């Protein structure tokens, strides 16, 4: 996260490969399910043996004795509808919910989060010196209206995308944050409105940032968990 600061985001998980190295973020939407992005995985058939998620700690690489840390293997990857670029990861066992681990809400189907809503992104990715890269960083971004965003990006914004306004101070996601949440406050709850996907440049000051609009895929998410 560029331009953020250390903070708490109990639904943000760190996804780690067989070598235990963090490579992407995700969001805990059910005790045993995490939402992330397709771009983090080689294929929908990827063999995730040895991959795991880490929750409950602010540290990217906590010391083994960290009492709040939970590390849970990933047993399955399910790819979303093709254009969604979303995946769901099933965990080997349910995460234990506590002060440091919480579920993030899913928006109503096809819900449009109002422009100007106060949202935040979180992750353990690149900070490029703007903050402490060894802990979870959180940054605030306001939602940009779809029409405005479309104008700024010369009509290239898809229905499945959600924009946030660029900030002169250069705030945004970067390598290692992909798959993490864009969480927005609605009715006193934090709701997963967007998922971070790779962009050509990190934290642009001259263009809106794009996220996958989760409300378009809530029916798919519910169906996967139900099936």
């Amino acid at each position, binding site marked *: 996260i560029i331009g953020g600061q250390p*903070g*708490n985001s109990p639904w943000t998980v760190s996804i780690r490969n067989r070598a235990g190295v963090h490579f992407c973020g995700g969001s805990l*939407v059910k005790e045993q399910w995490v939402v992330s992005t397709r*771009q983090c995985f080689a294929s929908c058939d990827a063999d995730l043996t040895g991959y795991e998620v880490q929750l409950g700690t602010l540290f990217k690489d906590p010391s083994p004795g960290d009492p709040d840390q939970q590390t849970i293997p990933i047993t399955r990857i399910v790819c979303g509808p093709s254009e969604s670029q979303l995946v769901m990861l099933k965990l080997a066992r349910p995460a234990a919910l506590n002060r440091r681990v919480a579920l993030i809400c899913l928006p109503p189907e096809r819900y*449009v989060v109002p422009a100007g809503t106060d949202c935040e992104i979180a992750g353990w990715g690149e900070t490029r010196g703007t903050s402490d890269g060894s802990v979870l960083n959180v940054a605030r971004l306001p939602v940009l*209206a779809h029409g405005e965003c479309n104008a700024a990006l010369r009509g290239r914004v898809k229905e499945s995308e959600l924009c946030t306004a660029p900030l002169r101070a250069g705030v945004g996601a970067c390598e290692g944050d992909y798959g993490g949440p864009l969480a927005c406050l609605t009715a006193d709850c*934090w709701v997963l409105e967007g998922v971070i996907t790779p962009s050509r440049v990190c934290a642009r000051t001259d263009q809106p940032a794009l996220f996958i609009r989760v*409300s378009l895929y809530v029916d*798919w998410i519910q169906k996967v968990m139900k099936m």
Partner: protein
Amino acid sequence: QRSPLNDFQRLRATELLPAVPAEPPRPAERGSAEQCARRCAASPGCRAFHHDRQSQLCQLLPRTQHSPRVQLHKNIHYDLYQKKDYLRDCIVGNGSSYRGTRATTEKGLRCQHWHAMTPHDHSRFLPSPRNGLEENYCRNPDRDKRGPWCYTMDPNVRHQSCGIKKCEDAVCMTCNGEEYRGAVDHTESGIECQRWDLQHPHKHPYHPDKYPDKGLDDNYCRNPDSSERPWCYTTDPGREREYCRVRLCKKRPRPHNVTTGCFRGKGEGYRGRVNVTVSGIPCQRWDSQTPHRHHFVPEKYPCKDLQENYCRNPDGSEAPWCFTAHASIRIAFCFHIRRCPDELDAQECYHGHGERYHGHVSKTRKGITCQPWAAHEPHEPQISPVTHPEAHLEENYCRNPDNDSHGPWCYTMDPRTPFDYCAIKPCCEPPPAPPAKLLTPTPPADVVAFEECGRRDERLQRKGR
């Protein structure tokens, strides 16, 4: 740890019937396919058997599809297993186990019947129920190293070899052998292959049901994962898998669907020069092993055009991809290469959410066969013709009985994938109105209610530092 089924070739959902009902069929016996195979192998007259997977019954048969006056019929209740030696038209080793129906010599002379003594009197090799000397078929009763032979009908030529090819030469492979469908069933060091539809001695993910188009038949060498060449799991518990020796065809096939500005299908024919990922990270050169080690070495994949660091699809993935120059991102798809426009309107398509789609596509977008809606395995359905009688849930065709907004779907034959969307695209309909109109209007925040989620200890947030 070879399975008795290794001697058999399986034909799914097929029944072998005599053209004219002959002797009463043998009674069915209870048993797994492997038990049946063991019984058939021990019974001299048995050449094949039916196996009913549901009732676990088997019926031994004295004939194969190459026997006279028989017919193959479709019957979803049976799998037909036939002894390979009776079906193969090539030989393994010196061919002494060959039981095919070739009856001419390598020079084209007709063979003399084994029981006949003219034109050549031979009394050495007379037919018996065990030695396979039937009709005038080529055989190798004396283990001649030149393979099966026969006495000929030419008075001047007593006997001659039949020139039957070795299986490893009979069918050649192109490129890396992904399309190889020959009958080699031993590895290059001579170990017998394990059947793909068995999980012993080695558990593996390449189940034939899950990859219906990879030709994972019986225990024949195949290349389902884009390795350098065909391979198989072996019957040696101490050796999981090994390459097989298969002849490379002299002629290299011309690639089809070659495109440069866009891609078709999975992009296997893409030969453009895009060499960055969606997020602008440069691709790694295919002939380099840094930062990512890999096995897609250009020399070993001559048909895949792994030039420079261009996006390519050498392994049948969903779209062209590349290894990236970023150490922590191994692979990335090049989804930003556009799909060729003519393709979009060529395939079946569906309107709206596809709730009225009644076509016959029965594969998921990953090519996995759909599970019949009325079946209960490998997945117990929550939606079925019983629960949704009006949804036309026929066979295993893709449908959308629950009005899923992402289109027709089906339960799948992959035990690990309960359901998936199908390889059908929405029809080209007029561009949707801007999302704000299409999506749910934004209710005031206090109307939307959430339960047991989205709450955190804000003090922790402040104490983050």
